[in-house]
């Protein structure tokens, strides 16, 4: 792997994600915040956070694959949502697409994303 996972018993994650990752080689890929739009810019799943989460992670995977990686290449993801009550649905969609443990992870509730219809945005840094 181009990165390693750091774990310590003194500080544990609050959910199924890595506490920290360290780049060990390879290229670093910065992925823009991904949202639930299709290739024409139409919003997928307006008002439906589960559908938006699936499309968002699909789009994220698309960027990673274009550079020869996959979701497993991610060192860090940041998930921004607009309503805390959406978090369980987002967490479920996220564990459906990630095999096993998530990358190092941050979850933030923001006031809004750059279009009022978007309920979730996910950005990441990957080592490939």
């Amino acid at each position, binding site marked *: 792997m181009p990165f390693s996972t*750091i*774990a*310590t*018993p*003194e*500080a*544990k*994650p*609050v*959910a199924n*994600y*890595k*506490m*920290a*990752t*360290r*780049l*060990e080689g390879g*290229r*670093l*890929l*910065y*992925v*823009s*915040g*991904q949202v639930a*739009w299709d*290739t*024409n*810019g139409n919003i997928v799943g307006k008002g439906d956070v589960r559908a938006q989460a699936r499309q968002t992670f699909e789009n994220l995977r*698309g*960027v*990673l694959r*274009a*550079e020869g990686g996959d979701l497993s290449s991610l*060192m*860090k993801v*940041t998930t*921004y949502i607009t309503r*805390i009550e959406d*978090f369980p649905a987002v967490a479920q969609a996220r564990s459906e697409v990630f095999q096993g443990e998530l990358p*190092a*992870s*941050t*979850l*933030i*509730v*923001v*006031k*809004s*994303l*750059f279009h009022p219809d978007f309920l979730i*945005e996910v*950005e990441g*840094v990957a080592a*490939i």
Partner: protein
Amino acid sequence: MDRREVLAERPVEKSRGFMPGVSVNPSRVLFTAGLTGRNPDGGLVAGGMAAQTQRTFERLRAILSRAGAKFDAVVKQLVYVTDIEAYNASGRPERAKFFEGTRTASTGLVVRRLADPAMLIEVELVVDLPGSPSRTSLLEKYNVEDHGGDFHQGVIVNGGRLLYLAGQVANSPDGSVAGVGDWGRQAEKVYENIGHVLRAAGATPATVVKETTWVLSIDAWRRHGPPVRRAFYKGDFPASTLVEIPGLARPEFLVEIEVIAAVA
């Protein structure tokens, strides 16, 4: 300096002037603090979103310039705004003047409040620098202005390995939350957790490159957080950003801090 643009022709991002992804061979990387439309005297520039955006990018240009870079070396931008309509109407055009044709990976967020309640925009950048890593030091931390704050405006990682921490919150190893309703205790616990993770990875507070502090209240954070933070960094501060947002993963969490560090 080995920049590769990923899915450059994807129409949605292209029409908006950014790039789905940008990859680099990380040899020298610059992380900037979150910069805003402050004047040299610390006050905000007059004139609203357009003026604040212009001033923000002028200041970022000075930070890039000190590192020998221009906007065409920017890999990633994170733009925080408090008013998205104003940004779309008058911020974006100002930003575009600085980047010209360069398209970076980008994330844009609408947050509740920035350092000053009148601030409309804050921007932080990751920059792929030219040249080979210097052998003298892993990190180069610098300021281009005499801002008097507890942070550096730019931190260059000279070779070494980047370390990405998950956002740290005030949780104990047994899963309980330390300091429910107590800003000071949560600040202590968060930095304690950061310290443990850094140590496990072979890093130290002095090798933290960039810090983002997400809080439910900037006013409350300012009363309790800075002494804990100063004790942690002992004067050797990273580039940093402080943002107020409406919520974190659990209702008990008052603050979440994520850091990027480097290891030789």
